[in-house]
């Protein structure tokens, strides 16, 4: 009986000790541009990636998905040179919009969306 109690208690402690894995699906989305723009984003290895994107229409959507731990920095910035163009950037965490920003016919042509994956 003594060992049964020990076993039960051990199980209780172990069960409560096992923290859930805090993984999150992060998605970067860039859309709304009608001409070439550049993007910088942090990938799943925390490397800053720079790419050029040439959309066919304003409805085109550039998307990058990866799995992230709680607390990791999420970052995407875009720069477009065509003052007639526009750009909308979004960061989604587990399918929900975490942060977004857009520029429409803005001569600045630069925008950044960033933050950290919230702790659950």
């Amino acid at each position, binding site marked *: *009986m*003594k060992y*049964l*109690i*020990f076993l*039960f*208690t*051990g*199980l*209780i*402690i172990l*069960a*409560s*000790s096992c*923290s859930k894995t805090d993984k999150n699906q992060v998605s970067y989305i860039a859309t709304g541009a009608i001409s070439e723009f550049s993007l*910088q984003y*942090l990938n799943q290895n925390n490397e*800053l990636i720079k790419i050029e994107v040439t959309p066919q229409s304003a409805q085109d959507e550039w998307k990058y998905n990866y799995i992230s731990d709680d*607390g990791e*920095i999420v*970052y995407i*910035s875009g*720069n477009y040179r065509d003052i007639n163009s526009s750009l909308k950037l979004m960061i989604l965490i587990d399918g929900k919009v975490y942060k977004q920003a857009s520029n429409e016919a803005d001569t600045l042509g*630069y925008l*950044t969306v*960033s*933050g*950290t994956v919230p*702790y659950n």
Partner: protein
Amino acid sequence: MKKVFILLNVVLLISIQMLSAQNIYLVGKITDSSTNKPISNVNIKLNKSNYSTTSNNLGNFDIKLNNISEEVLILSHVGYKKKEFKLNHYNTTDTIHIKLSALTLKLSEVEIMGQTDDRLPYSIAKISLKKIEESNLSDIGNIIAREPNIGGIKKGATGIDPVIRGFKYSQVVVQLNGGTRIEGGCPNRMDPTASHVNINDLSNITIYKGPFALKYGANFGGLVNLETFSPQFYSSFQNNISVFIGAQTNHTGYKSGIRIDGGDSSISYSISLNKNKFGNYIAGNGDIINSSSDNYNINAGLGFKVTNGHVIKLSADKSWGRNVYFTALPMDERKDDTEIYEASYTGTNFNNSINLIKASLYHSNVNHEMDNKNRPFSDTVVAISKIHAMNTGGRLAINLNIFNGNIELGGNFEHIYKDGKRYKWLIMQPNLPSFNENIWSNAQINNLGINAEYQQLGDIFSWIVAARTDFNTATSNPMLRLKPNGASVYENTDTESSYLNFSFSGGSSWQLNESNKISISFGKGTRSPDMIERYIILLPVGYDPYDYLGNPQLKPETNHELDFSYNFNNDRFGSLSTSIFFSYVTQYISTVLVPPSQVKPQTKGVLGVKTFINIDEAYLTGFEIAYNTPQKNRWLIQFNSAYTMGINPSATAYIIENGDIIGEENVKNDPLPEIPPFESNLWFSYSFFNKKLIPEINIRMVAAQNLVSVAYNEDTTPGFTILNFKINYTYNSQLQINFGVNNLLNINYYEHLNRRIIGTNSPFLEPGRLFYTNFIIKL
């Protein structure tokens, strides 16, 4: 999960009750034959059945029994003569009163930490295992802070930093098991020593007020020894299991632990697993206070009795802290991984002149990570600080009988290492610029000390003298802070210092008659500056909103303290103890503003940069008074009251207008900051069913603190009174349950030592009404 957890506990409880239902228990009390005071921690064993237990802090015990007529009770305690007690003349309904005689060759009191001798003149507070177990508190600092004239600086969910008689931070030594030290990582002391120890592993706490206990290292304002469970030896092989489960509402969470220990007369072991997890809480006014924490640990120990009287013990502890919120700081603890390794040898079986030889080694290793990700400022700058802190040391003590007393000669060594950086990402900038800053740069402090202590403890007159010398050296790589573009903000290459410090203490106590005792103690305790005071590089680590800069050439400060105490102890009227103290501190470590022309602040929102300096002097004085009705009564009333005030005779206050410093003024007799106000506590309890069921009401009355430091822009705090209630039920020696309500009237209040919520002047409120329960099972 919560329902399964409750169900399993109920099953567990019922199982224990069924197991215990058929047993008979013998109840008794053990007292000192000369002083009539209860003796705690007496090992009590039955020779036939081999059942064993220990007496509690009131000297009470109960032990499972099969056949009373055949049994002999064997009582042993390190400071008393072993006694065998035949039970054949007693009934199981009798309460047995046993008196033990003190050993003539008594071991030095502090070698067996937690088993202090009442004849010593020092002001010593003891927190027993029972008191620790019955509390809902999970933070050791919080438990210590409930003692008279002790407070705790609270910045978040855990890591409450004790303030003893107005002394704080490195002015108070907190150690484990008679010498093990832990250097926390956080510059804002998120993780002081006590936060690295799981409360479920504690067996008792001893607090030495004043600079009197000198054998463990330099002692300035007080010493707190946290004694953890260690492997114990048994006459025949056995295993024991202890389970602790506590849960509470409001600050919703639990503390849980299991300990298995056992062994025989030559080898023993212990292993424990603990997990504590708490959420946010609701204050008395309905505000939600971010205060969640999660920590768990594993502790294992081995003991070897090489030959009779020669014991070697080894232990290792690994703990993990995760996502601990610090509402009053600019960052939260993201993770804290700590390892503590201890090895000790205790030899007692030499000859008539050598009482004891003790040698111990330890190493503690802290990897502390914190960030600002839960702060609004992280929208533009994400900052993560990673600190590595180590403390390695050892102690040797030889205790000898000489001139009708005993002398202890010894030495100790401590090496502290600290290194860490803060990494910053400007997350709204193109190209995601990042850079790092030194917080500590390979900073090291070494302290080598030798000490001697002589004591004679008598029934009428006792006295003790002690002295120690410390050689303290410190070094660091250059203190350097650069701008992101590489330009220098601050640089100091003059980082080496060394000091030779001398401390001494003495005291005597005089037992005037059976009931009255007076004591006097005096001491001069010198401590060298700590890591923060020497090497912190531009961080806001103080009470006030300034960046702080370490001063490697800061001198040691010295506390000269005088204590008087009077104790009355009488079976009819109860016990009264009073003490008053006066401290005169020279080379007091304070702070001064650094002109902006020399260095500019680097933290958003601070007013300027301060650095540490020695000032001529400061004074502290105060008193403690405690009264208990006689322990023999079923009803018990306890009362205590304490007060401390501290004065800086000549302080400098800075005049601030619209967030800028526009001048300074001299303040005469400025109160020292962060000193708790006058506080009184009253407890009423009544024992039912032979002390098995004890309800208790506690009224805690804390006065307003209006004596606040002008130089530190300290805020006043209103007074408050709260009502707490608890019921302790001891079913038998194997099962205890307690249930309680803290802040029964849901009063909205905060302690004076709670820091303000970061970025605001809002107080860090304490929890409102809170229900809790604890189950303690020992098999």
